[in-house]
């Protein structure tokens, strides 16, 4: 074979493969979803991790309950109904006729196994974080009835159980797995370094999804994810940056249950002065800052998003009033507050799109108001030291960039962490407030929401422990052949069963 002919063949092969690659996505019922990050593992106990949940939740594994995106209330899934037997005990009826993907039947025993696997402490289970320090214990009553006891009154047990993924009793108890077996409409076909593939599970108890196969890949650059959907290489990406959301036909915004804020370390001067904390809120040019996040974001006045039980819609966000901010600073200075001492704003790299720019902008605004704020951007691991207790000893007066995700329908996943003196992220230490929080947590029904609202109002008006920024917006790009819209749960799950094909 001559040199030339070999080159020709190579070139032809190259061109052939090119065209093949571009038109690989045919109109079959297989779709490709491109995620921002590779899922480290596929352990069903870690579905609260975004990239694990987006693959597994409601697709491979299901829980007893599911949170309604609009009301924030738990709805039946693998449980058909539930009642509160006494203060600390709830009784769940398990859906009959449900099979695991390995053919086993779903029983109360299996659910108890899943709960025990999560709470047993023999392996690290991320989803446990939602339970805080609660202890729960599950006891099967009969084949399809399960009692769940908690160590203290737990009004929102059905909500909490929405994070407990029910897995086949064959799953190892003491070891995380990468081949989960659940009851969902899809089963795992393969998982390697480049993709995860799901296939429709024909023995599913519910309605048969339209989609037959789903392939998940990952690209870290937003522009490339957007490009992949645009060129038809992928059908859906749950997250693109605002600047890439330029096509109103394919790009949809959704409130993503994240709330951004700056936490104020109340223990260090000058931040221990209320006037300064208020000034920090007032000094921001909110209208200008909003430009960074797009017109769809909603100014936040509290750390939980609308739709969460306890969110107070009437609570007003801080207005922009640089004059008053300067006045407050001056007043504090007159009162002997060391307003000139340096305040460090600790930001985290890549926390959310344009997060770094926002911090730069805010620092500039605070400096205008006469506060000596310095920006330090840290890597996650370093940043976490400031986020979580115990805080570093030598920290000084700090402001901390943070973001809080509550998609679990109840302010109980927010308030104690931030405002109770024992809270993981709290800088407040107020016994009276602690008491109010404890009361609210034990309350149920209407009063529960009212109590939470009161606490949010107090945090906003009297304590000013933080600078709530925005209820954030996520953008998805959805390929033209799919009929699907994101909602507040998209950050934690993408139920393939909800995706329809056009035509």
């Amino acid at each position, binding site marked *: 074979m001559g040199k030339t002919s070999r080159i020709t063949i190579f070139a032809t092969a190259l061109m052939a493969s090119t065209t093949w690659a571009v038109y690989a996505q045919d109109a079959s019922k297989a779709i490709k979803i491109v995620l921002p990050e590779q899922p480290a593992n596929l352990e069903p106990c870690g579905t609260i991790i975004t990239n694990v949940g987006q693959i597994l939740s409601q697709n491979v594994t299901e829980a007893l309950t599911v949170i309604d995106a609009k009301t924030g209330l738990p709805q039946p899934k693998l449980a058909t109904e539930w009642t509160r037997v006494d203060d600390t005990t709830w009784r769940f009826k398990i859906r009959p006729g449900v099979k695991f993907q390995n053919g086993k039947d779903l029983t109360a025993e299996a659910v108890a196994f899943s709960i025990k696997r999560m709470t047993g402490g023999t392996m690290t289970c991320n989803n446990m974080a939602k339970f805080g320090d609660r202890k729960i214990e599950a006891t099967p009553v009969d084949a399809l009835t399960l009692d769940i006891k908690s160590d203290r009154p737990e009004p929102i047990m059905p909500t909490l159980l929405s994070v407990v993924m029910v897995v086949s009793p064959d799953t190892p108890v003491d070891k995380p797995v990468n081949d989960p077996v659940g009851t969902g409409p899809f089963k795992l076909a393969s998982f390697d370094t480049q993709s995860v593939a799901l296939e429709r599970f024909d023995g599913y108890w519910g309605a048969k999804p339209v989609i037959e196969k789903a392939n998940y890949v990952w690209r870290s*650059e937003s522009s490339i994810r957007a490009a992949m959907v645009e060129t038809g290489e992928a059908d859906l990406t749950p997250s693109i940056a605002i600047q*890439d959301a330029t096509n109103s036909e394919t790009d949809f915004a959704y409130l993503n249950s994240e709330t951004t804020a700056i936490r104020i370390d109340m223990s260090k001067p000058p931040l221990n002065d209320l006037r300064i904390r208020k000034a920090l809120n007032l000094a921001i040019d909110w209208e200008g800052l909003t430009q*960074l996040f797009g017109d769809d974001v909603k100014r936040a006045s509290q750390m939980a998003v609308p739709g969460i039980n306890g969110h107070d819609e009437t609570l007003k966000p801080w207005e922009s009033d640089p004059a008053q901010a300067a006045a407050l600073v001056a007043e504090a200075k007159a009162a002997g507050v060391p307003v000139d001492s340096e305040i460090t704003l600790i930001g985290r790299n890549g926390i959310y*799109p344009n997060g770094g720019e926002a911090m*730069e*902008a805010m620092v500039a*605004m605070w400096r205008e108001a006469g506060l000596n704020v310095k920006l330090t951007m840290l890597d996650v691991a370093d940043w976490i030291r400031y986020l979580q207790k115990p805080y570093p000893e030598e920290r000084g007066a700090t402001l901390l960039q943070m973001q809080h995700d509550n998609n679990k329908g109840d302010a109980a996943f927010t308030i104690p962490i931030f405002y109770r003196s024992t809270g993981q992220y709290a800088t407040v230490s107020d016994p009276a407030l602690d008491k109010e929080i404890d009361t609210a947590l034990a309350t149920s029904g209407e009063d529960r929401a009212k109590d939470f609202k009161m606490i949010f109002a107090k945090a906003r008006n009297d304590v000013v422990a933080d600078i709530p920024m925005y209820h954030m917006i996520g953008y998805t790009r959805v390929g033209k052949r799919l009929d699907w819209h994101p909602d507040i749960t998209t950050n934690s799950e993408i139920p393939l069963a909800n995706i329809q094909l056009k035509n």
Partner: protein
Amino acid sequence: MTALISDITVSPRTGKLRTIWNCLKRDKLALAAVIFLLLLVIATLAGPPLIGDLATKLGLRQRNLAPFSFQHDWIYFLGADTLGRPIIARLVVGAQNTLGIAFAAVLCSMLTGGILGLIAGYSERWYSQIIQRLADVVMSFPSLLLALIVLYTLGPSITNLVIVLAFTRMPIYLRTTRAEVLELRERMFVSAAISMGASPLRIVVRHIAPLVLPTLLTIAALDFATVILAESSLSFLGLGIQPPDFTWGAMVANGRGYLANAWWISFWPGLVILLTTLSLNLLSSWARTFADPQQRWRLQSLRKTPR
């Protein structure tokens, strides 16, 4: 052939600078590179006082302002970035950090690498071995990991970034120096110095180091470009310079998300990086030709005898 010429021309020093200038004039690319670099240095030194705080002043209402618009101040001629800050101002102020970091890093790595290389090359003691193994270790130590470690343990700062970059580039100098020393120490003038009673220190400092230096400087010019690019890669991965400090590399990295709809944010810093590194590369290529007696005539205006 050149041996012939060199024997014939025992020319006194006719202004070394003049010779350089004449040779530079002949290579238009290198000349352009020199002019660009000079302008850059002037802008870096004189620009910031002129620009003041424009580079950090927010203009949230002119976010991503497109370039070449005459409706705004001249400083917005190249557009504005994601916080509405004028790109021209950012480029000028960013030059200080970019070039400063690169210069400091190259200098540090050249000094440490050079000194260690001199020791490793001249001495045959145990620490010579240690130094070489150390160089091996550094060579295969991922710079990203180092960047993260330094970032975490020492905190984000320009100094620490310089440490990271200097450390990772150091082995190049070490190995080059060592190789040169191994050759130079066998040279006759070293033997001559030893026979006169010169101490090892004197030999290394007076006789060997000055001869290694030109090679190191050539590498340094190339390395300067490499360091600027490495710094921008670190920024891309979030391990580089941290806001509010910025460099051209960080500007490119931050603007990359806007390439599809506001290309100018990362294009202009990318362009100045490209022009700077290109200039340095061209200049060092010119310098190699200039330094090589066999090739230098290529840069000279050759006047033929009229016939």
